[in-house]
């Protein structure tokens, strides 16, 4: 259930207003219903209801109680707001709330999977009207391209079936894999499959562009995979063979840090340069990952990591001048 751990003052204030608006249109609601509806723990809702009852307003020297929740009914798990003098609806969306949701919808409509969805366009219009800002969007997303295979994988996820495919792993080896697919992630234009890997006995992250010959097998995913529950967005899976690498990045390469698991809080060391310690799974890949940033990302230590990056760059410089097609065979 809900992530109220992150609820701060604004969230609580916002929830109180929404709660009053919701209850104002209903005679009685059970606590369970409320909890399901707002996706919040009952305990939390009860506390919110109590503070509605505690709320007072000084009006012209008199103390008013704007809301009354029937306490006897509440003990039986029933919520009834009998007085609600001043608020009879939920406030409209703030422009920031509307912008964040509209951009989310815009992102969905930029994904080929949802491209033809008429609901999304009408929702974007409604959200904009619902905030009263109107005019152009603050944030927009250009249409992307779909990864071949993503729709087959989605079908497998909905049917809870195991898939098989050929996979190029991070060591660039071609392997035949069976994966119990759980979720498709699309992040920064890159498509990933999050799936339970029976070989590693854990949830792993697969680049969909590295998958070929995806087949849905006539076999349901295992109970272990089915019970994985919520998957964290972070894709890093710790292995004992991982290496801690210290890097320094300028703004052009900040992205590098967010894409890796960092060991400690990254430090600003002045003039926009940030130093961070990242965990790297397969060290030989570091050349590709760092060289991408063209000098904006610099490996400080360990020395073997620096060597890998330098050698990759030198090799690329050599190869790019005398690319010999005969080498390919």
């Amino acid at each position, binding site marked *: 259930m809900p992530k109220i751990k992150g609820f701060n003052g604004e969230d609580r204030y916002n929830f109180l*207003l929404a709660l009053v608006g919701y209850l104002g249109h209903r005679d009685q609601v059970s606590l369970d219903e409320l909890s399901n509806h707002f996706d919040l723990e009952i305990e939390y809702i009860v506390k919110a209801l109590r503070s509605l009852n505690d709320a007072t307003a000084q009006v012209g020297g008199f103390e008013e109680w704007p809301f009354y929740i029937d306490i006897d009914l509440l003990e039986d798990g029933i919520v009834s707001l009998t007085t609600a003098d001043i608020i009879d609806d939920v406030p409209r969306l703030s422009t920031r709330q509307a912008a964040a949701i509209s951009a989310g919808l815009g992102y969905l409509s930029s994904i080929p999977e949802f491209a033809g969805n008429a609901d999304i366009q009408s929702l974007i219009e409604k*959200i904009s009207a619902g905030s009263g800002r109107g005019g152009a969007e603050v944030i927009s997303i250009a249409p992307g391209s779909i990864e071949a295979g993503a729709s087959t994988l989605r079908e497998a996820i909905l049917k809870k079936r195991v898939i098989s495919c050929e996979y190029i792993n991070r060591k660039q080896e071609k392997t035949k894999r069976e994966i119990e697919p759980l979720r498709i992630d699309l992040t920064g234009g890159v498509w990933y499959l999050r799936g339970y890997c029976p070989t590693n006995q854990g949830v792993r992250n697969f680049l969909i562009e590295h998958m070929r010959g995806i087949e849905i097998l006539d076999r349901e995913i295992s109970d272990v995979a089915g019970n994985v529950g919520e998957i964290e967005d972070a894709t890093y899976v710790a292995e004992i063979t991982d290496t801690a690498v210290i890097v320094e990045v300028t703004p052009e390469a900040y992205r590098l840090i967010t894409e890796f698991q960092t060991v400690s809080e990254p430090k600003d060391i002045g003039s926009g340069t940030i130093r961070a310690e990242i965990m790297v799974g397969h060290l030989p890949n570091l050349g*590709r990952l760092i060289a991408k940033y063209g000098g904006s990302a610099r490996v400080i230590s360990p020395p073997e990591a620096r060597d890998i990056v330098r050698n990759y760059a030198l090799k690329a410089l050599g190869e790019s001048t005398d690319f010999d097609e005969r080498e390919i065979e």
Partner: protein
Amino acid sequence: MAKEEAWKPAKTDKSERLFQLTCVLLYSERGLTKRELFYAVDSYRADLAGSSEDDFALNKKFERDKSELREMGIQLSNPDPRSDPDEMRYTIASETFAWPDGIEFDAQQLQLLNLAAQVWAQASLSSEANRGLVRLRGLGIEPAASDLIGFAPRLRTHEPSFIPLSQAIDECIEVSFDYRKADGETTRRHVNPWMLRSIDGQWLLICWDKDQKAVRNFLLKRIVSKVVYRVEQINEKDSAQVTFAAPSETEIEAAIADLESHTASQVATLRVKRDSLAWFHFHMDDQTSATAEVTFSYMDIDLLAEELSEYALDFKVVSPPELAKVIRSRFEAVASAHA
């Protein structure tokens, strides 16, 4: 933080204070002056320093609360803008709680809204979206049983300039920042920010460049300073943020169309090694020869060089020749940074 600690219904709690402030304002038909509000809201009253005349801290707190309410879409209005600041009567604008007609969502749509609100990986945008969702749920519809499971699109914003820029766009505030071009040249830019646009995972600011007097696009990752809001001195004591007229939809559409035609006009061709990572990246499976050519358009040559650097050993640039040069100079920079 434990669940138990998440809720502290003390009178000093900000949510309680804002809520009480809202209730007090809603009760009052003709509005309340600042002084009246200071007596009506428990937390303010507790802060009223009987002795001090200016109540500097309390005034600041009230100003902060006002702007928080405004940011959360609770519009304070004051019926007579000419009045003395101390005599101003605050009310909550009546449209704050009035949804336009026809704003209804069915269960299927609420499900899409749910998915859309989960898109943000960035914490502050994710909270904005989720607070919006809480309000929409407050309208009363139950989401349908989800058939969108198994799909988690996420938008990432790595750039510190993203939030200040989106707020400046929202409020039409002029901004300035240092921009470092791919060749390393850094200049101060003064712009009217119009829109943030994500193209293949890269964030771009579409704006009116006040120095160039033209529409310009800036990559957020090349903004290397803090984003500064332009402030103007109104009188000896006060200053205010400088705002501009929001762009029309036509202007925005034209800017996007320009960007798209610019991208379409730039074309690169590569010769790629069979079964390499680049081969997979470009989906060249239907080719049977040892190498094959792929042609595509690109927005920015340095961005393209960055993307291709990962596959540097897998291809040769056929055209344009500048691309090979840019890739080369990037690798020279990498080699010298790791010498």
